[in-house]
């Protein structure tokens, strides 16, 4: 590890730009102080890895509208509470009398639905391949228990199509720190076609600082090579968790999905199959994305086109206290991590 540290600090080769596409990586890189340990020739860029940040305003508006309906409660994870739609956030709606509950586990939704049969619970089912199996499990349980007052408003997305979008439309990335949690479910093989097509290395890594540092080292070494390397062998296999994949396929099917700042990317989403439409709280067609502040550059930050610090609002008008965009709100957002943990440009 000492050699790895020294190599990364003293690296003087051609410049390397590496992208992480997992919010937990984004946060851990900042929390471990990794950027300051790297040579200026190695740049780490945050990609669209935070599910909250890539969610479009139409989806948030729909959640806000739902929570204001009588007899309806919206259930959500914490970070989504503060992200504004075109006008209001769930937090704003809650202060105005809307019914919103923050949950730590989607399974708690079953208990609520069971205890209050007269109330409709809508779970804000946001996430990537990692979270989708949990929603599938939730539906499985709701189905077997005959719970009829629990629905999902889905905004589920998948990683490979958005990575492909970035490589095709933007480029400038010399390798990807592949998302550890996603890979547990999908297996490392999903990155193989992307690696081959774009001639780039993909390294799957866990979330300890040492693992991330090792992955950065591997990516620099593999620069320009087609290669998928798995450094997270304790939990990631080549084929992934096939039981979870089956559960997801049972309830969901691929669809085009709208990503903040990137528009609709074909095949990059998952939506409930028609036979499970009774669990859907109106997820289709929520594609419109009107940021409430036209000057917000979240869209460019999300794709790594600019660093968070290059946005003119960063740190002055836009802080975690007065966020102008989702990337400054979510704890996995790039702007939030650049601001709070000082993950500045090296």
């Amino acid at each position, binding site marked *: 590890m000492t050699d790895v540290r020294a190599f990364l600090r003293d690296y003087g080769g051609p410049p390397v730009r590496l992208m992480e596409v997992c919010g937990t990586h984004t946060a851990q890189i900042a929390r471990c102080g990794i950027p300051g340990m790297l040579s200026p020739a190695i740049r780490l860029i945050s990609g669209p890895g935070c599910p909250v940040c890539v969610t479009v305003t139409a989806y948030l508006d729909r959640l806000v509208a739902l929570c204001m309906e009588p007899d309806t409660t919206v259930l959500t994870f914490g970070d989504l509470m*503060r992200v504004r739609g075109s006008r209001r956030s769930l937090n704003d709606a809650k202060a105005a009398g809307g019914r919103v509950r923050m949950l*730590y586990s989607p399974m708690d939704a079953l208990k609520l639905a069971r205890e209050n049969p007269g109330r409709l619970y809508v779970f804000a089912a946001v996430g990537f391949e990692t979270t989708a199996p949990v929603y599938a499990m939730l539906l499985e349980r709701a189905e077997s228990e005959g719970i009829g007052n629990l629905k999902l408003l889905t905004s589920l997305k998948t990683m490979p199509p958005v990575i492909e979008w970035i490589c095709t439309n933007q480029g400038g990335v010399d390798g990807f720190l592949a998302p550890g949690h996603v890979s547990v479910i999908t297996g490392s093989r999903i990155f193989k076609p992307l690696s081959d097509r774009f001639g780039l290395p993909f390294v799957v890594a866990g979330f300890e600082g040492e693992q991330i540092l090792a992955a950065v080292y591997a990516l620099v070494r593999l620069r320009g090579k087609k290669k998928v390397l798995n450094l997270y062998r304790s939990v990631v296999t080549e084929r992934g968790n096939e039981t979870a994949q089956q559960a997801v396929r049972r309830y969901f099917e691929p669809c085009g999905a709208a990503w903040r700042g990137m528009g609709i990317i074909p095949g990059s989403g998952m939506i409930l199959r028609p036979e499970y439409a009774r669990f859907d709280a109106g997820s289709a067609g929520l594609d419109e994305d009107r940021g409430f502040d036209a000057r917000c550059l979240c869209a460019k930050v999300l794709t790594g086109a600019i660093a968070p610090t290059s946005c003119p609002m960063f740190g002055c008008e836009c802080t975690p206290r007065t966020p102008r965009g989702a990337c400054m709100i979510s704890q996995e957002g790039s702007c939030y991590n650049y601001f709070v943990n000082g993950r500045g440009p090296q």
Partner: protein
Amino acid sequence: MKITMAHGSGGKSTSDLIEEVFRRSFTDPVLAELDDSAVLPGAEKIAVTTDSFVVKPLFFPGGDIGRLCVCGTVNDLLMSGARPRYLTCGFILEEGAETGDLERIAASMAETAREAGVRIVAGDTKVVEGAGGVLINTAGVGFVPPGISAGPANCRDGDAVLVSGFLGEHHAAILSGRMGIENEIRSDCAPLGGMVGAMLEDGVRLHAMRDVTRGGLATVLGEFASASRCRIELDEAALPVSEQVRGFCGLLGLDPLYMGNEGKMTAVVAAEDAEKALSCMRSHRYGENAAIVGRVVGRDGPGVCMRTRLGGLRVVGPLYGEGLPRIC
């Protein structure tokens, strides 16, 4: 602007609320110092403080709202260098509260007051509509002996930063209780008089001290750094966190640096006194796991940073947003 939960988090929104709402009306110069207690001139200096306790559940592993409402106020007095003497308590009871619970709470308050050496000398009770909740306000008065001058603005270059034990235990215990998670985590709720007394008696040059409550160590040290216009550098590897709390935090994505305690303090002391302060803390029953966790490193940009276990350096910002449910 409507009040949201973030205004009670102890983080930036809380301090903004204090600045923008309360300080406009409450302009007494002593209150304006925003220290843990108001230290007033007189024949002898007295310290005055008040705090309200709205924790749920009322009883939790390692303590209850009664022990908490005494420790919280006593510790605030201690951190101003005062010897706590008197407490007042105001109960706000929601219709439906159980008298049996109230008896347990009162007994716990009395026992904790005895342990802390304070007398509960005034009280008040109100009942409001509600759902059986119990809310308590305590106010405390302490006497400040001459020669005490610890304050958040007194941190100096080279000073050592100590913490009296494992971080985040109260917070994790309350959160476990609320979420129905079974574990061994207990609240650290305790009065800190013995520990502070030991340091003062041993002549430790205490430049700043504070109990580590809502907002956690990061928030307290951020306030020190800002008041003293200095930079504080923490050593991640030295931060005391129990295995159970570390596991709990990992599971829920929490950071012990921002989690509250009710029986822990941080002290900034002259570098030469660091070991002496450490042995004072460790010799005390509530300070067995005390550690030197960082130091004051000059004035280049006020703030808190941390040398990470990996060897990197990062900024430790204030707590933003709601953080976590209320714990006191």
